[in-house]
């Protein structure tokens, strides 16, 4: 039995609680949620889901409405206290929503939603999450790098500008991020390196009756090997080996005298044709299939750069990019790419991209298979056979994931090159809120079923509570 004081206390509480528990507020909240999420779908249609998330769904406006919703749900339940039997469906539906939202909060706060790309036959223990980090490594000898800076950045919502730069402290002047572009269409470009620190760059053409390709080969630094694999033949730019690997290969090396080449053949380890080439010169490597190899451009010291074309909306080929200024020089860095920066006494490596997370166990992709509908190229199902230490071999397909160490690995899609799948893309998730989401769902559904059960009763209550509402308004006039 409650004492009068307690009753008085609850009365005061209820009085203050009243405005928060009002149905009008509930209607307002429901409608604003509807309007905001609707706006989000239009943003997604115009741009993409990432933009919709950043501009609508993951914003303070959305969180505030959600907070208000929960406050309203709690308040209205307090208001109806003490609950009677007929309140069961009402309480369950509302408690269910709160539990559901709590689960969603847990997922947002502590969950993992990442992707993993594993090439066929290889293995990986890293996943990529949607958070974007800016990381800077520094080195004094150019070989060993140590991490000096790591920070999550959200340039989409808070873009840096020349006036409001994002600074990374370095030994001398800071590295400045001065611009951000949401959607750019990149095309690779190789330019002469003024500083002369980069490796060599070669633009060549291979031509015969059936083939005509033009490619760039750029060494990351001098004395490293850059390779272009055409399948039946490989072109390398870098140090010349003594012996061949029993493959059709052309080695090109920037020497003091000029660009030297050696050709190796499938049939023998011994070097074949050799000589020097100048820009514009052609030679036939002497493979079984006759072809012409032409040097279009040769740079002793070259760097790769990007030509960026601004787009007003994203396409599957666009990406985002940031502009870095260091020591008076501009560099554009694409998402998930890096740039090397040099000062007089130090070298820096700056990476800008999705966070890579070690999941603690390697996933090896043994094989990947696409089932197609009979007689067509239309995909029917994707399947990956993976191997995980402690689990062994396991088949993952659409709707049949692997659950291991709190993570769930789903078959998401695959990567294709020249019509052949080359890698499988998995979605790797951890969802600590799952239990609450399911529990909340169950409670909501039970509440709704009860509501249907008690609907007659409910109707009577409504009539009693708001006789004007249920009465026909036409009748009053």
């Amino acid at each position, binding site marked *: 039995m409650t004492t009068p004081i307690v009753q008085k206390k609850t009365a005061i509480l209820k009085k203050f609680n009243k405005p928060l528990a009002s149905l009008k507020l509930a209607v307002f909240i429901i409608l604003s949620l509807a309007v905001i999420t*609707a706006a989000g*779908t239009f943003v997604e249609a115009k741009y993409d889901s990432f933009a919709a998330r950043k501009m609508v769904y993951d914003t303070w406006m959305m969180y505030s409405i959600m907070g208000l919703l929960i406050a309203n749900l709690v308040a209205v339940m307090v208001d109806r206290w003490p609950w009677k039997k007929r309140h069961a469906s009402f309480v369950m539906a509302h408690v269910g929503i709160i539990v559901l939202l709590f689960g969603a909060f847990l997922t947002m706060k502590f969950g993992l939603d990442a992707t993993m790309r594993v090439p066929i036959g290889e293995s990986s223990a890293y996943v990529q999450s949607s958070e974007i980090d800016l990381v800077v490594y520094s080195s004094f000898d150019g070989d060993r790098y140590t991490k000096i800076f790591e920070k999550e950045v959200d340039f989409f919502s808070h873009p840096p500008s020349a006036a409001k730069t994002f600074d990374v402290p370095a030994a001398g002047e800071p590295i400045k991020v001065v611009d951000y572009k949401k959607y750019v269409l990149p095309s690779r470009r190789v330019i002469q390196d003024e500083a002369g620190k980069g490796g060599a760059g070669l633009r060549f053409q291979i031509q015969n009756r059936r083939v005509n390709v033009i490619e760039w080969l750029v060494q990351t630094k001098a004395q490293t090997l850059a390779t272009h694999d055409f399948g039946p033949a490989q072109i390398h730019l870098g140090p010349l080996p003594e012996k061949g690997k029993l493959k059709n290969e052309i080695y090109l090396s920037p020497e003091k005298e000029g660009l030297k080449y050696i050709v190796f053949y499938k049939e023998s380890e011994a070097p074949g044709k050799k000589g020097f080439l100048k820009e514009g010169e052609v030679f036939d490597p002497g493979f079984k299939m006759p072809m012409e190899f032409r040097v279009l451009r040769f740079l002793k010291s070259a760097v790769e750069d990007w030509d960026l074309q601004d787009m007003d909306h994203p396409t*599957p080929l666009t990406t985002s990019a940031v502009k870095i200024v260091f020591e008076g020089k501009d560099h554009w860095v694409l998402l998930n790419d890096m740039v090397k920066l040099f000062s007089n006494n130090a070298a820096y490596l700056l990476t800008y991209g999705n966070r890579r997370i070690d999941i603690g166990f390697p996933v090896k992709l043994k094989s990947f298979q696409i089932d197609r509908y009979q007689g067509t190229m*239309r995909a029917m199902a994707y399947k990956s056979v993976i191997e995980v230490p402690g689990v062994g071999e396991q088949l993952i397909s659409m*709707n049949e994931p692997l659950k291991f160490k709190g993570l769930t690995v789903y078959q998401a899609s695959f990567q294709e090159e020249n019509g052949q799948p080359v890698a499988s893309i998995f979605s790797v998730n951890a969802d600590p809120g799952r239990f609450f989401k399911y529990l909340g769902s169950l409670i909501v559904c039970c509440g709704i079923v009860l509501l249907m059960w008690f609907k007659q009763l409910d109707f009577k209550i409504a009539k009693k509570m708001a006789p004007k*509402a249920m009465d026909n308004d036409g009748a009053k006039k």
Partner: protein
Amino acid sequence: MKALSRQTQRPPLFKKQPSGLSLAWQVSRKFILMSLMTVSFLTSLSAFSKSGEALKSLPVQDGGRIKPYDSFSKEMLEVIYGKQKYESRDASEIVLTWMLSPQSWVDKKIFEVRNHQILTALNLPQEQRYFSGGELFNTDGFRLLREELDARRQTKEKLNPYFQAIQRLENQFFMFQEIASGKMLKVLPPKDGNAWVSIAEMPTEYQAKFRDIAKAFIVYIGEVAKVGDGSSLESAGQALDTAVLGFEDAARAINPEAYSHDTKIGMEVHYNYFHPFRWAYMFYFLAATMILLVWILSKEILMKPAWIFLALGFALHTYGFVLRMFIMGRAPVTNMYETVIWVSWGVILFSTVLEMIYKLRIFLFSGTLVSLFALVIADFAPAILDPTLQPLEPVLRSNYWLTIHVMTITISYAAFFLAFGLADLGLFYYFRGEAKNHEKIRTIVMGIYRAMQIGVAFLAPGIILGGIWADYSWGRFWGWDPKETWALIALLGYLAVLHARFAGMIKSFGMVATGIISFSLVIMAWYGVNFVLGAGLHSYGFGAGGVEYVGAFILIHFLMLLYVTILRRGQQKNLKT
């Protein structure tokens, strides 16, 4: 054009409005109609046994499944000509002649082009809709259009209606060529593997067998064209059937397992000619008419035939649904057309349930009208609502959660559609005068409230089931995908209405108004996301077209609502003064 050609196939009685007739005439007419329909039923059921029809059931591999040649030819003609018949000749005849004598089709205007931009690019007259292959494809304009399309594909951006139209033109070009060369029609199962062999690539012995079909076919269509006594047509038909069966036997001998689709193929041909949904909406129309007569003539006895018509319509509706399910081996709720069928089925179901509880007739009346409306649209807009039977995208396969969540969500749309129909009726009564229709309005508002409750009771669990499915297939419960978000918005809309009603914020007229307004959210979730927004993971259901009609539909309702609101304001002012 489509509407006209379909109209002629209907029983002529359908066109007249049977109102204001005497009861006796009405009843006798009902029997005439019934017997007429029974006859047509039987004739369409016996479509198998008619001679010359075996060709239609010839198994063909196309679009990732084995289908009867009849479906194949209908789909091909639909792509090229935009209809399932050409000059009232069946697609199965037309498409085979493309292959047997392509040269006779060179000058025929069989390629449908609707896009005006394309016609401009090809220097063709805007008012014309059909063109010959020469006019379209032997031009520089066509080459340029294809280059433009290729360039667009390179960017990997979404194709807008203009590029989709070029894509269709390209398809028309390739399909006609492939059919003419015999490479499209894959009729021979392989010894092993699953890619069937086309007519052009068949071994000579089977080519010879097929030539028998071709010869018999030519004789047969010659006889069809003639106005003879029928006996020679009969024998020509039998000869064709024998040739087809001879080929089928030879094909079956190669790989009996791959050639074992007889029942399904028979069913599909039956489905193609039976048109269960067309029959269903005709019966719904009759049922609605009967209920209307109950009111106009105050003859309670007419409720009985109304129920009978409704039951017949519903049985046929269900039958069609089950047929599709049997043919495809899955619940048919994976594209717009199929959900329209399913929703209209749900409308009848809910209105019947409500009718049985409340016995107010108004539920049944609006239910039949709404379902009739939906089915007629599904029947008359095949270019937008694709009625063909298509295999599923990988993510949709082998998962019962998919079927359950889609069915639950769309069935809630049925309840909201019913509420919308009732609201329309309510609006009509408000228009006619609030005071004298007070009782009717009261009933209708109660019905709207009930229907909305039913809708919410299905939509909320449906969205949750969708979350469970997403969690199960993609590992995330909720991802703000436009399709799921719009289902949520619709739910929020109706929840707002129910709460506002509970709080006394909206009254009877408010319920009628919100019944109409909130349904536009359902239209957005159901149609708009796929056809207007065109984004997101649910992209397998995407289509194009019809936006202007759907937009006009919503706009007209809003205008009607506005008009009645203003009218009502005026009346209320008059009452006060």
